[in-house]
């Protein structure tokens, strides 16, 4: 079979890497990359949503408040669907003991009534225990259908955890959307 130049180049690269790096070294670098992955923002998704960030307020933000994160109209909850972790033993960005945060999330943008700025919010589910069933909220500000999952609150976002049992939802602040 005739070999292409691309094949030859690929082989040279692979052999050079194999000669320089031990398998463990490769695994450790790959592992470090995986561990660090959650620290990197989901750039394409966030950029897409940032472009859509509402500038002049939304119907939700008109009635939102910034002092009580156990109420459905807390400003970060503009797109939350489910039980507030703040009512289940956790907080607005921490899971209750006994549950595990999913490394995956969907991204929304909410307006802070105090500064009228739009912020990117990662809605993360806490998974493992049975459903908390406290402070159940259904906010749908700029929530998208399930065929656009990166902005959908109906997917059970428990990917990457030990359990797909939904417990509660957090609203983790990612940064400014504008």
């Amino acid at each position, binding site marked *: 079979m005739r070999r292409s130049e691309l094949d030859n180049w690929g082989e040279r690269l692979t052999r050079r890497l194999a000669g320089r790096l031990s398998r463990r070294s490769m695994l450790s670098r790959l592992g470090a990359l995986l561990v660090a992955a959650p620290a990197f923002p989901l750039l394409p998704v966030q950029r897409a949503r940032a472009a859509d960030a509402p500038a002049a307020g939304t119907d939700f933000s008109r009635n939102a408040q910034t002092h009580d994160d156990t109420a459905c109209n807390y400003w970060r909850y503009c797109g939350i669907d489910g039980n507030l972790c703040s009512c289940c033993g956790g907080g607005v960005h921490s899971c209750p003991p006994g549950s595990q945060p999913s490394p995956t999330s969907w991204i929304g943008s909410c307006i802070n009534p105090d500064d009228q700025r739009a912020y990117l919010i990662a809605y993360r589910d806490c998974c493992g225990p049975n459903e908390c069933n406290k402070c159940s909220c259904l906010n749908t500000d700029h929530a998208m259908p399930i*065929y656009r999952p990166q902005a959908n609150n109906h997917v059970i976002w428990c990917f990457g955890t030990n359990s797909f049992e939904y417990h509660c939802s957090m609203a983790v602040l990612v940064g400014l959307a504008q």
Partner: protein
Amino acid sequence: MKKTAHPASRAAGAALSLLIGAGLGATAWASGQAPPAKSPPVLQSETAGVTPFAGLSAHQISYSALDGLEGGGVRVIDGDTARLVASVYSSQYANFEWSPDHRTLYVSETYWALGNRGKREDVLSIYGGPTLSNQGEIPLPGRLISDPKTHTFALSADGHYGYVYSFQPAPAVSVIDLPARKVLTSVEIPGCGLVFPFGPRGFASLCADGSLAVADANAQGQYKVRRTKRFFDVMNDPVMDESAADERSGLALFVTYDGWVHPVHLADTPRFGKPWSIEQAAGMSPATSQVGQITWRPGGQVPFAYEPSRHRLFVLMHEGAPWTFEEPGSEIWVLDVRTRALLHRWAVPQSAYLVAVTADAHPLLFALSQQWLWVMNAQSGTVQRATQIVTPGLVRVGGE
């Protein structure tokens, strides 16, 4: 715990007193009084069994219990009596559908070996026979775990193929040969989701850019996926997951958050009809996503039901701001999709999250709130009867 007489114990005590009284009475009769009238025959012993189930009848409705709150399960209610007639077990986050003859129920569901953890098994469970008993399972390569969504599972119009939408690791649709009980293939639909069957083996999916993915099989059963043009504005006014579709005719009525109906005849080359506004059909200005615009909008959990024979679209409507597409409906609007005219506006006794209509000659309309099922005449809107239900998730009706 303070010990008190258990209610059953008290009842037993009362029965004993009656027996003693009866004994005294017998003594009195023996002593020469007139004998009582002829006593009823002794009741015969019984054997336990299962009430036969002849399939979901034309006026019956089946619904799943909302996950998390109710723990799953599919229940069947007879619309003519508003009584519960059958129940089937399901996992949480299940979906279900009946075969075209309504005798076999397929439940798309997921289990873990240790309840909330351990080995995961995605299966299509089969129920049927004379008592709606379990008839086995078809292992699935995966399925999406989500809140209830009608179009994550569907059958072809002839009931030969099942389609299960999967999301992990990538969006795909598993195609199942139901008589052979095996998964034939998984068709990847990158950037798209849900499944709307058409023709003998085709299906369409909605895509994140506002287009459709259309998949159909060749004679060898190999699927080819094509993308159509963009036909809606996904960022400002997306079509709803729960849009109505009739797999027999291939007509899909994709309805947007603001109430624009996009009629699409699903096929290898779909035909896109001109969109029309539900609000305009009612003589109002179209709803928009402009902040502060309070007007009538479609909304709910399953807000649409389509009756193909009379071309009627039933829509749960509420008055609300933009992005309130999950608000329950205080009214059901009845529209003729051929003339694009509003025919009726019917108030429901309590805001409803789901709506369904049967497909027989004397159709029933069902409106479901979180606690109640109302059975209505689909031609007059009259509420005929009601029954209390567990919080519903999805709904499928007879005659579909």
